[in-house]
């Protein structure tokens, strides 16, 4: 690991240097009154001078009185939509005289260029690592995910302020990026200067940094970067007490709190759609109007949908209570048994985007405090 410093004005050159290496650079942009990850041409596409205010069921962009580039937190969409798109074709096949023409079944053609993710927060790096476990560690591997995931380049950003619904600190997933990046930036913005402390995670990251104007970080730069992430950590006021949480949830499957929250929950599935780790999908088999060509399409699905658990005769999880319980128990209990990690990274999106403002940290706390 090496640590460098570069001026804010050099950010555009950093993006250009990545693009020169045939990456499609995806970064934060301001779009539809939200921070949305999309392809960026240069630093001017970034949300310079913007921040967001987040609370239970509320998200608002606000202008800042400075030119901070990364002074915002997790927006409605995570990086998941690039590695694991919401709608994906699994195959196309043509009808033949006796069935279907299997010759036409095949993997989709690979995309022309690899992704570079620019501005990935620590919670999001952890979410990507969790989805890697799900899709790449078998026994079966998802060929569609593997194809998109291979060879991506990641520029992480350490959070310089906490969002209103963040709880990464208690999930041990932030606010400072620890691994899973090529370069990790910390933005320093004060009266004297606007610059970035850049830590390298890989040789590829080091090589790219070497191609822009930067200098070796001084001790005070490193100290300042640490002070910034420490300050962010202190700002986080929500938390999940993870001690023995798996057993707490397994043992409280009939806790009255589930019924209480089911009264509020609209089963709209927003929480699962914004969640950067949720991985459930359904498939749709469709034909063209002539019935000659058929496709299978994979789409994000949600355990909040009534038909998610449908087997002949009815749904296994018919009540709202059982669906809410399934989601929370999966995140904080069964995920551990399945993948050896929590299914939550504390990004707070499910709290922000819940239309009735249900706070998963409060729910877990309520169950823990009054165990049945």
């Amino acid at each position, binding site marked *: 690991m090496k640590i460098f410093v570069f001026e804010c004005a050099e950010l555009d050159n950093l993006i250009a240097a990545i693009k020169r290496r045939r990456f499609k650079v995806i970064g934060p942009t301001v779009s539809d009154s939200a921070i949305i990850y999309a392809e960026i041409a240069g630093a001017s596409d970034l949300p310079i001078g913007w921040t967001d205010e987040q609370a239970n069921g509320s998200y608002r962009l606000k202008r800042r009185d400075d030119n901070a580039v990364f002074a915002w937190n997790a927006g409605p969409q995570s990086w998941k939509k690039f590695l694991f798109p919401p709608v994906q074709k*699994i*195959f196309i*096949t043509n*009808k*033949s005289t*006796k*069935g*279907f023409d*299997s010759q036409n*079944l*095949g*993997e989709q053609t690979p995309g022309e260029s690899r992704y570079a993710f620019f501005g990935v927060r620590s919670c999001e790096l952890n979410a990507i690592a969790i989805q890697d476990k*799900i*899709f790449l560690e078998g*026994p*079966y591997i*998802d*060929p*569609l995910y593997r194809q998109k995931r291979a060879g991506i380049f990641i520029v992480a950003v350490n959070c310089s302020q906490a969002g209103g619904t963040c709880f990464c600190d208690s999930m041990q997933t932030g606010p400072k990026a620890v691994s899973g990046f090529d370069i990790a930036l910390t933005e320093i913005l004060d009266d004297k200067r606007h610059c970035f402390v850049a830590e390298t995670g890989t040789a590829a990251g080091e090589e790219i940094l070497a191609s822009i104007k930067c200098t070796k970080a001084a001790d005070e730069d490193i100290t300042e970067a640490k002070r910034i992430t420490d300050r962010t950590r202190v700002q986080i006021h929500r938390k999940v007490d993870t001690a023995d949480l798996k057993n707490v949830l397994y043992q409280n*499957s009939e806790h009255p709190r589930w019924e209480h929250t089911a009264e509020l929950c609209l089963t709209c599935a927003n929480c699962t759609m914004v969640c950067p780790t949720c*991985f*459930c*999908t*359904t*498939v749709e*088999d*469709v*034909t063209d109007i002539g*019935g000659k060509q*058929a496709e*299978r399409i994979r789409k994000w*699905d949600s*355990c909040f949908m009534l038909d*998610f*658990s*449908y*087997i*002949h005769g009815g749904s*296994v*999880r*018919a*009540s709202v*209570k*059982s669906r809410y319980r*399934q989601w929370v128990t*999966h995140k904080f*209990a*069964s995920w*551990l*048994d*399945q993948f050896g990690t929590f299914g939550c990274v504390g990004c707070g999106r499910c709290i922000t985007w819940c239309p009735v403002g249900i706070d998963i940290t409060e729910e877990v706390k309520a169950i823990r405090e009054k165990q049945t």
Partner: protein
Amino acid sequence: MATAPDLQSLKVDYKRNPMLPWPFQIRRVKRETEDTFTVELEPQGDLEEFPFLPGQFNMVYVFGVGEIPISISGDPANTRILIHTTRAVGTVTKAMDKMRRGDILGIRGPFGTPWPINQAGGKDVVFVAGGIGLAPLRPALYEVVTHREKYGKVVLLYGTRTPNDVLFRQELEHWRARFDLEIYVTVDRAMSGWRGNVGVVTNLISRAPFDPRNTMAFVCGPEVMMRFTSMELHKRGVDNEHIFVSMERNMKCAIGLCGHCQFGSFFVCKDGPVFRYSQIKDMLVKWEI
């Protein structure tokens, strides 16, 4: 976590994209009962054999209509013919019901954990089936019949709705005629001419001829039937570790990626469908897990 699937013994090409169905041609369709039928399929293209283990299932695809999980009901010793028995109840099975000899179906599989029949050597083997639950047990029955000398007493307890709903009738009669197999059939509702048992299948357990202390039991049927059957077997003295059940949940991918079949921390498609009763006993009594 679950019963370790003996997948090593199968020549499954995991490098092949597990999301793509393979074409199989229908060689024969056999009507079992009014609403249940059996299809015999032959692999097409360069796939000549389709080895599987008793208790495993496939995802069966009808062109443009959809794909569903169906357990394999044929003889594992015959790897050239794939057999599925299903009831025409949903969109896909109704479309299958209209298909004839020569038509092509798509198959992905085989998936899931098998009945651990290889651990039952020297023991009495009890099969308890409810309705269509006999189909996933039949491959294990074939295995036991083929290597009959390896096992102690072999008992099949089978409950179905009416005498007209009895599956694999000829085969059952043939097996019943053997002196080394004990076959008991019971129906929920009898009609004139029925001389067999009437009532739920759990009623047969207390009288069935097996030594509970040296028995492996394989149970397949509706969830509630499997729950009460397992409790009854346990009451008779069969160890919970020696009772196996086959779970059913909604499935889209069958490879542990779509999330639909979750049952507590298990993915029924890859950790099951066959579970040791002791693994899931506590979950079977929880509502809407």
